């Protein structure tokens, strides 16, 4: 796939909606489109977080590996969602597994390369972070809401 095709995909993705073209092109240089089969592992807890993924279609589950039992799904991600933010903070290792539970199409971005680019292009770094922070806030708030509901429900 050519860089320009993946750049177009990036620009159409909800996460990058309205991003300056220059930046889309730069990110496109680090990105490629990948298809995952059902049940295929995308990333694994403890491994280096050197990629970040955008879901274009399908369904991805974020799971916690649990010894002696089946993994627990803690988040379901679909079209328009981002998979992973461990690549943004040291030690750059995944804290969960991610698996395609349906045949899925993702944009796979070389996060290690992008991180290095941020150092020389802070405007790009700011633009990406400013889109990531609300995603992190929403996930945190979703987790808290569920924690609270579990606790309230229990009583």
């Amino acid at each position, binding site marked *: 796939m050519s860089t320009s095709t993946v750049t177009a995909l990036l620009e159409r993705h909800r996460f990058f909606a309205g991003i300056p073209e220059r930046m889309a092109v730069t990110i496109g240089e680090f990105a490629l489109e990948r298809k995952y089969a059902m*049940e295929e592992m995308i990333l694994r807890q403890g491994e280096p977080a050197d990629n970040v993924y955008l879901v274009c279609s399908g*369904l991805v*589950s*974020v*799971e916690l590996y649990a010894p002696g039992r*089946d*993994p*627990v*799904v*803690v*988040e*379901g991600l*679909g079209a328009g969602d981002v998979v992973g933010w461990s690549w943004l903070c040291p030690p750059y290792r995944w804290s969960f597994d991610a*698996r395609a*539970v*349906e045949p899925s199409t993702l944009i796979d971005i070389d996060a290690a390369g992008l991180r290095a680019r941020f150092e020389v292009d802070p405007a790009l770094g700011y633009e990406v972070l400013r889109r990531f922070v609300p995603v992190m806030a*929403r996930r945190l*708030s*979703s*987790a808290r*809401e*569920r924690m*609270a*509901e*579990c606790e*309230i*429900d229990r*009583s």
Partner: protein
Amino acid sequence: MSPPETVSAVQAVPGAVTQPASALDPMVPRAFRVEHVRREVKDVFSWQLRPLDGAAVQIAPGQFNMLYAPGVGEVAISVSGDCSDDSALVHTIRAVGTVTRAMAQLQAGAMVGVRGPFGSAWPIEAGYGKDVVFITGTVGLAPLRPLIYEVLKRREKYGKVIITYGSRGVDDILYERDLHTWRGRFDMDVNVTVHTAPTGYRGLVGSVAEAVNRSTFEGGNAIAFVCRSEALTLAAVRALQQRGMTTDCMYTTLERSMKCGIGFCGHCQFGPTFMCKEGPVYRFDTIERLFAIREL
């Protein structure tokens, strides 16, 4: 004024002197038979109740009855069945207290008491011409189910119909049969989201608010019915506001202690309102200010 006249003058006033209270005394339970018990999910069961006197039962979606376990006590429970059936009542009960745990022990055939109906109803017609969004979690689906039935009976009067239901896990999804039936319809969206799930789960995993973010409806022309724990209502309200809805288009229910159901006992007060009279269904903008005050 001679003595006998004095007494008769008093007697002439209706309700005076020694006499049994009216047979329709709202404080006296009416006898119903538990016709059917359905175990829904852990600690939650539904009763189908039929009145022993055979007279019609009347109740509207959103209203509640005071259910009585003989010799144990009474609890306020919303109607959760089809309200157009005037021969029987359906109530879904979670066994969390002394009375409801005693109720959980009762088998089909047992007799129980019912007082009601009490309280305000969901405004069915307020949503005509609008997208309808139901937001609920765990057993909160029970008070909404009669309204969902009504909306589906007159489906053509509404825009999109969306149910957003949150459950702790995949094993405690209430009314799974109904949800399955509704999901099979082409004229409504059913978004069931769970807090966590076993691997391979194909449904939504996330919070109710997150599921609201993901659903497609016209925020500017929608009505929302929210029924979940009071602590989590605001999360739903905020998610709806982010979709462009205003609080005068949101309805919710609240829960307080209830002893009588008719405004006499004083227990269910919420600010100037009695939850058994002005509630349990409120338009959210009418209580928005009170809702923000803790321990009111």
